[in-house]
């Protein structure tokens, strides 16, 4: 991924992140917005300290927000359909497991982002099966 340090590219990534946060709050629920905020906080405070181009990290952060938004939207839709078909019991099950499902994308995306950002020079030193 080559984004250089183009300021406009950075601005568009930041815009995408803000739009995702607004959309999750207005269209989905507060829990999905808080999950996105936790993800953004961890990402900006930890991953942004690592080596690599800022725009590459911003791209990953924006991508994470888009995936998170999409993920929450899909599960909210499943909840709405499930509740109308199976009744309120489905909604309770959804409420219990939604945070666990929500963090599935956070953790997976976190590990993928770090794998992408790890300097290739070190990658060869790993144990191979």
């Amino acid at each position, binding site marked *: 991924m080559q984004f250089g340090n183009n300021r406009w590219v950075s601005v568009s990534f930041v815009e995408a992140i803000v739009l995702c946060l607004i959309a999750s709050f207005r269209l989905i629920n*507060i*829990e999905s917005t*808080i*999950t996105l905020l*936790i993800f953004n906080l*961890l990402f900006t*405070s*930890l991953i942004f*300290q*690592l080596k690599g181009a800022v725009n590459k990290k911003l791209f990953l952060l924006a991508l994470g927000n888009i995936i998170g938004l999409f993920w929450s939207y899909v599960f909210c839709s499943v909840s709405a359909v499930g509740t109308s078909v199976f009744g309120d019991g489905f909604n*309770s099950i959804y*409420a*219990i497991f939604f*945070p*666990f499902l*929500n*963090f*599935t994308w956070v*953790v*997976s995306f*976190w*590990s*993928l982002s*770090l*794998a992408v*950002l*790890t*300097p290739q*020079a*070190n*990658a060869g*030193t*790993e*144990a*191979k*099966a």
Partner: protein
Amino acid sequence: MIIEALEIIFLFCTLLIVTYLVRHYIFTVAVLRKDKKTAKPKAVLAVNYEPTVSILIPARDEELVVGRLLQRMTQLTYPHDKMQVVVIDDASSDSTGQIAEEFAKRHRVIEVLHRDQKTGGKGKAAALNAGLKRAAGEIVLCFDADYYPQKDIVEKLVKEFVDPAVGAVQGRPVVLNEAQNVVTRLVTLERIGGYRVDQEAREQLGLIPQFGGTVGGFRRSIVEKFGGFDESMLTEDTDLTFTLYLAGYKIRYAGDAECYEEAVDGWKAYWRQRHRWARGHMQVCFKHAFSVLRSRKLNLKEKIDGLLLLNMYFVPVVTLVAFLVGVSLVLYGASQFFSVLWLFVPVSFYSLAGNFAPFFEIGIGAYLDGRTRIQFLIPLLFLAYMYNILICTKALLDLFAAKMLGKKQVNWAKTQHFGDRNRYIMN
């Protein structure tokens, strides 16, 4: 009324979980900052400090691995006239004793201490105490029989004792058989979180680096003053950590002193090892928690870190309680505030039980170690944590049962080692 009680329990459990998450977030930030400042690893200090050193190797039925370690002992670069290696053959029923004797015949630096069925087999702490009586060195280092250290590890560990306030030092274990299967890879992640970030951050922030009982050492005079290791403890290393700190000594973490270890390679062996650790850690918590609170030798941040460290193995039990109570609250219609708090419970499920390193800390640790592929396994921490919830809950129940029934708690619940991981060692 019941709902309010459940809400209070849930609030308490979640706050505890959040406290640990914040603590490990601080650890991660501290290590990242340090890494930015010092790009190169710490070099061995060029000080002329070469105290006499005794290396204790407690071994019980370790015929498959002890030879590998003893061979390495003969290759250590520390002056051999200032070094003594004591193998404690603790009532082994295999040929551990004979192998050690053969090495002792060929190398003057190696001695063997045999303990028969009557005197031996009473646990690692008892074996170390026996070895301590034979030890003549000013500094005593300990290695488990399945370990394989760097040639200059003694220099790297011993240099920390230049400071007279240092009572013990801890090096870094690195998993030798990482590529074997998913269990060994998860243990590798655990070691990365525990040592590359946790221990490093504690050292950095002036908290309480933990003495791990192996790949580490202590001043003989201090431990002798305490009367040796407490043989009633299952985790004598954690006990020594707190005994030292409560007596006003410090422990240093030497991250550049690396030593290979054989990680457990199956879920059953993992259960046995972690169950012993969890139970032992809980024992130490009951022994030292109040002393840590009252201590005048510890500052506030050491007290906080000490208490969080002591309570580490209770956290999986707390998350189980938080989950069960949280489910009840969701079903009975909890307020919005609690549904937001409910979000923090799953974060803890993507952590490691042994050091409560959450996924973000492990990821950063693996990055700092230059690891790419192992990052892909981080989502699997969820399964490992669920397993650890069962382990820690069982350990707690067993500890209570043992207390109530007055059962003896210490034996050699040792991990079986196979020695077929020599293929991973490339000299």
